[in-house]
């Protein structure tokens, strides 16, 4: 990751975000979305959050592995920034989902494997944050939090992919026997927004992580200067 050198990255991100935010609301919907009605537009704000979270947490996981391989402190900073970004994305996904659920199901929380799985997953990552806060020694904190990160990611995946598959029923769109996006999307014009939205949101949160990592490295540099001055 490092400093994102290319200004085109930022320009593309901003353009994609503008496109998603504007055209996601303007897009003519397929005529037969049933009770989902206009709330199906949440597809462009809620669903990309989860896709992006998966991608970002996966990247954080890989950076953690690289850190344990070569003990390069830079890698751990990237892993941490990406993980925090992923958690933020997960929370955004959770809140957009709850908002949607409140309007569609009539309650922000239902007993659904996907919702419960994500809630537990966020608790796992809260543990990551707690570990970061509770070890004072820098090298040890980096090592133990990387180990924890490597340990929880497979369990998190098991929780949000395998568990909903096992559950017999789910009222969440796109799982179990409930309606999914594909059954509505006969003309596939929604994909024209969905995929740019996924890419755009992911790029935005990677950008946030990158800024965070740069601040962190700057702080570390300052500390080292103070130490050796």
């Amino acid at each position: 990751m490092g400093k994102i050198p290319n200004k085109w990255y930022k320009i593309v991100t901003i353009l994609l975000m503008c496109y998603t935010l504007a055209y996601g609301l303007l897009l003519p919907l397929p005529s037969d979305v049933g009770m989902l009605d206009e709330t199906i537009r949440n597809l462009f704000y809620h669903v990309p959050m989860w896709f992006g979270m998966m991608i970002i947490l996966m990247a954080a996981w890989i950076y953690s592995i690289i850190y344990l391989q070569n003990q390069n402190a830079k890698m751990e900073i990237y892993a941490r920034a990406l993980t925090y970004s992923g958690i933020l994305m997960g929370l955004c996904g959770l809140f957009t989902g709850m908002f949607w659920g409140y309007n569609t199901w009539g309650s922000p929380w239902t007993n659904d494997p996907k919702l419960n799985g994500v809630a537990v997953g966020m608790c796992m990552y809260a543990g990551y944050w707690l570990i970061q806060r509770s070890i004072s020694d820098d090298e040890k904190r980096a090592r133990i939090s990387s180990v924890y990160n490597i340990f929880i990611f497979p369990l998190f995946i098991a929780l949000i992919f395998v568990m909903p598959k096992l559950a017999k029923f789910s009222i969440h769109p796109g799982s179990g026997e409930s309606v999914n996006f594909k059954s509505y999307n006969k003309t596939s014009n929604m994909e024209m927004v969905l995929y740019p939205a996924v890419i755009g949101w992911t790029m935005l949160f990677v950008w946030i992580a990158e800024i965070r990592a740069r601040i962190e490295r700057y702080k570390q540099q300052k500390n080292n200067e103070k130490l050796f001055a």
Partner: protein
Amino acid sequence: MSSINHTVKFFLQAEWKSKFALSSVLVHIFIAVLITYLCLPGMDQALFSAFFWIVVIFTTLQGISKAFIQMHKGHFLYWHQLISPVDFLLAKLIANFLLMIVFNVFALIVFTVIHGNVIDDMGSFMLIALVTGTGISSIFTISSSIAAKTDHPGMLLPVLTFPLIVPVLLMGLNAGKKAVDGLGFRTLAPELLLILLMDILIVVLGIILIKFIWKD
């Protein structure tokens, strides 16, 4: 292999020598089951599996994870000279697995004595308890070794541990419910297989990661 054997034996002997730890967990289980009985005297089949697992995870956490939590820095160094981290973890996993069996069986006995036997398929339920207990005790072991390295192990232990056991616990709970209702072994075999796979995943992850946790 023999070093693992000896270490397991050593852990179990230490456990047996200081009987207070083992017996305090057993008393803990007993009082927890008694509380469930006082709160809900007429327990039926639908609730049994859920109550059983809640009691088991909350009472065994301390008993299983105390090994790492109470270990001082000097102890880590001492063990490091004697045995490789992987061997140590394997020995600890085996010892904790045996402890978990004791706790599980004890909890099951107390449950059936106090609440009466509501389980239709006892053999399957015990098999599930065994496989799920393996997963839970391995996660307790590994996450307690992580928590032991933080500055506040006692505070962080439950927070780091309970979310991690949820995937295994949920599968065990569902399979357990089927066994309680007596739906037959064939219906719960796929879940049993999945739990076994999770167990293997957890142990393999622990073996890969332990040498990074141990380094001081």
